């Protein structure tokens, strides 16, 4: 892999390593897979007399990528450090509710700041519980999810608040053929890509996930890194909540849980080639994973496949894709 914090071992010839890393890089594989799935979908839909690659359809697919994409990009940062975040679904729900109810009384700016502050606080709490209390990330973020769920169920019984018309532009407007929200996703993804690949902090993310002990011995403040990753992740989730609020027009207690953003985002990240144990992968692969899921979804919609059957195929695709990585990874000398 190029660009990780770990330098390649000197015994390997750079040219050979470079060549191999390109082919073996899951980020490349998943984008090829996305292209293949698109082509296959186009053929299958065309065989049924439909047209898959219409502009409206492509725009729809991209629009469907946004919410899951934002969450998955954030999740990537956390998973890179070897942690994970199961609280994202309830954080999205709460985020939409806070956004919509704040917007009703105050302005858009207040609402956005409120959601981002809430997200940062939740991320900080997650990070501190994981690093300070040494609670396993799975349990820590599950616990946070339960706490948020209680907060939501205690305070909101159904959709609440109203999103101002000016803010709904984020959900529905387009620049040319592309939805505005897509630029939000691309901006967040680009920012996170820059952070992970081009900053010292990003290298610390990889180092912490690769081998926490070694990273600490090399002077990386691993705890601080994990906390920061959790905050970053939650901020991305906050952005997703803002987008969904704009899309729905009000806050919804089911916004995050209905679509199962917690597990789906982890699936997208792993589909994109990021190792669940941490230390390998990145944002580019994650976006590919999100795209594959969105294209599949769209193909099934076009074919009128039973929505429940979609879940079956989705499960099979996720397992099969990850099995392919594992197989390929094992052939490489390590």
């Amino acid at each position, binding site marked *: 892999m190029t660009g990780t914090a770990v330098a390649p071992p000197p015994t390997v010839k750079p040219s050979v390593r470079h060549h191999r890393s390109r082919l073996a890089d899951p980020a490349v594989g998943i984008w090829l897979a996305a292209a293949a799935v698109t082509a296959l979908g186009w053929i299958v839909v065309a065989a049924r007399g439909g047209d898959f690659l219409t502009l409206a359809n492509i725009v729809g697919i991209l629009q469907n990528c946004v919410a899951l994409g934002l969450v998955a990009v954030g999740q990537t940062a956390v998973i890179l450090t070897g942690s994970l975040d199961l609280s994202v679904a309830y954080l999205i729900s709460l985020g939409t509710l806070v956004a919509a109810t704040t917007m009703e009384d105050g302005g858009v700016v207040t609402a956005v700041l409120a959601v981002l502050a809430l997200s940062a606080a939740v991320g900080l709490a997650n990070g501190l519980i994981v690093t300070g209390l040494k609670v*396993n990330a799975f349990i820590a973020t599950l616990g946070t999810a339960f706490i948020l769920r209680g907060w939501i169920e205690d305070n909101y019984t159904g959709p609440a608040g109203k999103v101002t018309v000016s803010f709904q532009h984020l959900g529905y407007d387009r620049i040319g053929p592309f939805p505005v929200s897509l630029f939000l996703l691309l901006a967040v993804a680009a920012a996170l890509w820059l952070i992970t690949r081009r900053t010292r902090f990003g290298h610390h993310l990889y180092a912490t996930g690769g081998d926490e002990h070694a990273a600490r011995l090399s002077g990386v403040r691993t705890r601080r890194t994990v906390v920061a990753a959790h905050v970053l992740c939650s901020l991305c989730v906050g952005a997703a909540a803002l987008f969904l609020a704009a899309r729905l027009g009000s806050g919804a207690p089911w916004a995050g849980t209905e679509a199962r953003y917690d597990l789906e985002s982890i*699936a997208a990240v792993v589909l994109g080639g990021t190792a669940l144990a941490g230390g390998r992968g990145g944002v580019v692969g994650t976006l590919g994973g999100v795209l594959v899921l969105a294209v599949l979804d769209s193909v099934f919609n076009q074919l009128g496949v039973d929505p429940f059957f979609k879940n079956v195929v989705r499960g099979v695709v996720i397992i099969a894709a990850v099995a392919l990585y594992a197989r390929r990874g094992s052939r490489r000398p390590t």
Partner: protein
Amino acid sequence: MTTATATGATYQRVVRSLGTGAPVYALLAVLLVLLAVTDIGFYEPDRFLAFVKRAAPLVILAAGQYLVIVCGEFDLSVGAIVTAGVVAAAEVYGSFPGAPWLLITAGLLLAGALAGLLNGLITTWLRVPSFITTLGMMLILEGAVFYWTGGSPHGQLPQDFRQLGRGTALGWLPWAVVACLAAGALAVLLMRSDFGRTLVATGDSERTAALSGVRVHRARVIAFVLSGVAAALAAVLVGGFSGVSAQAGRGYEFEAITAVVLGGVVLGGGRGSVVAAMAGAFSLQALFTLLNLRGVSGALESTVQGVIVIAAVGIGAADWSRLRRRRTHSSGGTPT
């Protein structure tokens, strides 16, 4: 606890005999005392047995989940197996109203074993992380069951099938309690057998276990199969007392994992006892009951649950890491 005044040696001995489960036994004791204080009649045989009966599915799931977690894996598919089991049983009874309950139950257990076998084979042979394998299995099972039933499960479970979940033996002992005790005893026996030690060794260090002649893949596959069977048994109980619903097993996977971790079993494997895991399940159920009795609104229930789980695991982690460091000086564990 009495250990506060005991000498260092006794303290160490007590700690060792309790294993890493000490916090959960303390938590369970506190909860049971609070239950007695809150509700005078809680320990009347009927009421208490009803409590155990309600806890039974979670305890059985926790025992199965423990086997998977102690060898270093996850099983997120148990909730889906419970849902699928309940819905499938109802569907089969819809087609064959006169089917004998024993046959259906056996069929469910076999199906659970099959799902577990698939989980295990995909995890070990195809080297897919079990988090993803079982997550995929969860999507597949839920999708398949709803696809089969066209979105809304219908049909009814006949009385004799529901007997295991809601009926009583000898007129006072709920069958669910019997099933729970039997599953618990089996789990304890299993963990005391060679296979149990093999399983813990696999979770502790796969490489060491493999070099000592353990067939680690086989051990893991068996753990998944047993977890699947446990989930199917839980499905029979759940179907027995709450009837057919598309939500039957939702959330059970996280509750089971929470229970196991509450019992001091380390995610990543190799440490913790099955009794403590089942005590974790009882603690969770006691917590739910207590919150109910205290009149905490259903909404805030999950908040309290979240806080307690984090606190309990946090306290456990803090204590034991210090103890471990005292015994062996450097054990640079990596998080999962």
